């Protein structure tokens, strides 16, 4: 497998208030770093999960990769080409090869368009005029397992699961190399979640695209992905193969996350580690290891020194940021 997307040292910084307000409230640093020095790559046909609590910066990374958000620093290399600094029109050919699905399945469909027009959008946007829109819509609906007469419906006439399928169909219309799925199961009933995940897995098998899944649902991660990255306050704290991390999580935060997730295996030993306290504000990052405020193993060094990435001795692809890894 060869590299498709390589993200290096990516940081995204937001301004939180106007300069006048900053002056009035005495805030010297009116910025937050939603993503901070993030690096990862995705190989062709591979599935990578970004995992973390809400506000940890998962969605920001996805939006930056697709170009909805500008990176403050760092590089985004897609198929050997730096695309982080491209303008809208320069980026367009690359957007044909990647697609993103957004969290709310219904709200991400333009409300006044029929499903047929919605499915035709990618073709029209990329100037593929000589394509039979009706036939394409029918093909895509078949592909995601929806009846063809859905082409005449409007988004508000769809259920969440149906809208999600339409979203998948639209994202895959141009046969992209990379699919970014932001919480693909959010807001769906559990039975529908399973169907959607199975559909995604089947389509990945057939079409061979790579998938970047953003989720906080660890069951999704476990059953869908090859590798995973755990985020905390905009940084990666642990990256590695999904299997390995589930088996042997090294960072205390990962341990706590995995422990909090109800394990489908009834024989698993119940070993719950609870997270104490609240997620710190991005405005006031803790010193040293940023997790120390909630970590049960925190020592003096954790409060002072920011831990570097270390790698597992037997698996060089498994890295984590912790002074006292398990």
């Amino acid at each position, binding site marked *: 497998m060869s590299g498709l997307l390589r993200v290096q040292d990516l940081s995204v910084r937001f301004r939180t208030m106007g300069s006048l307000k900053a002056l009035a409230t005495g805030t010297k640093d009116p910025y937050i770093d939603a993503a901070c020095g993030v690096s990862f790559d995705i190989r062709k046909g591979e599935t990578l999960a970004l995992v973390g609590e809400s506000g940890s910066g998962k969605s920001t990374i996805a939006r930056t990769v697709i170009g909805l958000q500008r990176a403050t620093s760092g590089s985004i290399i897609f198929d050997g080409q730096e695309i982080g600094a491209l303008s*809208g029109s320069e980026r367009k050919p690359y957007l044909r090869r990647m697609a993103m699905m*957004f969290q709310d399945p219904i*709200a991400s469909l333009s409300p*006044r*368009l029929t499903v047929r027009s919605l499915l035709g959008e990618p073709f029209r946007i990329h100037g593929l005029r000589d394509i039979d829109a009706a036939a394409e819509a029918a093909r895509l609906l078949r592909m995601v397992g929806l009846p063809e007469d859905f082409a005449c419906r409007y988004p508000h006439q769809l259920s969440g699961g149906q809208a999600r399928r339409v979203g998948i169909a639209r994202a895959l219309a141009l046969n992209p190399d990379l699919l970014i799925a932001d919480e693909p199961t959010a807001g*769906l009933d559990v039975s529908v979640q399973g169907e959607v995940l199975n559909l995604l897995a089947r389509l990945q098998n057939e079409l061979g695209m790579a998938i970047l899944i953003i989720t906080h649902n660890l069951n999704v991660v476990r059953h869908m992905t090859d590798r995973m990255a755990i985020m905390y306050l905009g940084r990666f704290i642990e990256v590695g193969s999904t299997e390995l991390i589930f088996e042997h999580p090294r960072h205390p935060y990962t341990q706590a996350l995995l422990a909090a997730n109800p394990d489908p295996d009834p024989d698993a030993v119940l070993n719950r580690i609870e997270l104490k306290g609240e997620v710190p504000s991005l405005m006031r990052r803790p010193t040293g290891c940023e997790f120390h405020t909630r970590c049960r193993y925190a020592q003096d060094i954790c409060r002072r020194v920011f831990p570097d990435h270390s790698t597992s001795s037997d698996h060089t692809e498994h890295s984590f940021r912790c002074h006292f890894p398990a």
Partner: protein
Amino acid sequence: MASVETTRPETNVAIGPGLQQFRKNRLGMLGAALVTLITAIAIFAPLMIMHDPVRIMVGPRLADPSLHYLLGTDQLGRDTFSRIIMGSRIPLLVAFVSLGSSLAVGLVLGLIAGFGPRWLDNLLVLFFDTIRSFPGIIFALAMVALLGPSLASVILVIAITSMPIYARVVRTQTEALRSSEYVAAERSMGAGTTRILAVHVLPNVIGPLLILVSMDVPAVIAVEAGLSFLGMGVRPPTPDWGAILNDGFNYIDKAPWLVIAGGIPIVLATLGFTFLGEALREIFDPKLRKDL
């Protein structure tokens, strides 16, 4: 788990059920009837008049209403009935042209403010607020004084003063849509700003805007009649309700039917359009407010 199945709060777009609701709204039906009547009169006016509305001395001066002069005659001996009938054209023309152009300009500026860079937005909003702070009819009078009283001046003044409200409404809605997920989805597919504005924002903004405009029609009719009443609107001898009211006002003790005849069409027209506009708003966009 939160259900996504429930319909999202959004403007009611379905025309069929809306029409049924409208039939039940008695005031709305009355308004629609009045508006239809006035529009029909304006269109077929030349077929309905009994005398030439601008020719003087078709009868005696200030004659009482009679079978020959249904609403009497004015101080120049012109037939009031014919003048009222022909006078229906000016208010409708003014409303149509001024609100139409103000709608177009407001829409474009509102889209720019809502979708453009922040500094441009601030600048445009400041501009809208400045125009909105001009004192209504007083500002209109000053403008008409500068441009010279004429139909074109009246239209221009009304267009300028009604534009900022439309622009602000469009801006607010555009801004909300700008951060919506479906606009983000379109952008992630590579859609350019023009395409997003034309295909995905405009259709969602135009509905409430049209209702807002329809609710402004009575106000425009009132301003047009008012300016003509003050002698700052259409030039004589053009027949116009406000001008007729003004003619009658000067002879209020000798010929009261002139002011009665001049005022009633203004009342009926403003009431008709108000009832219609209120009904449309109630049905299609109950939350819509002018004070945005």
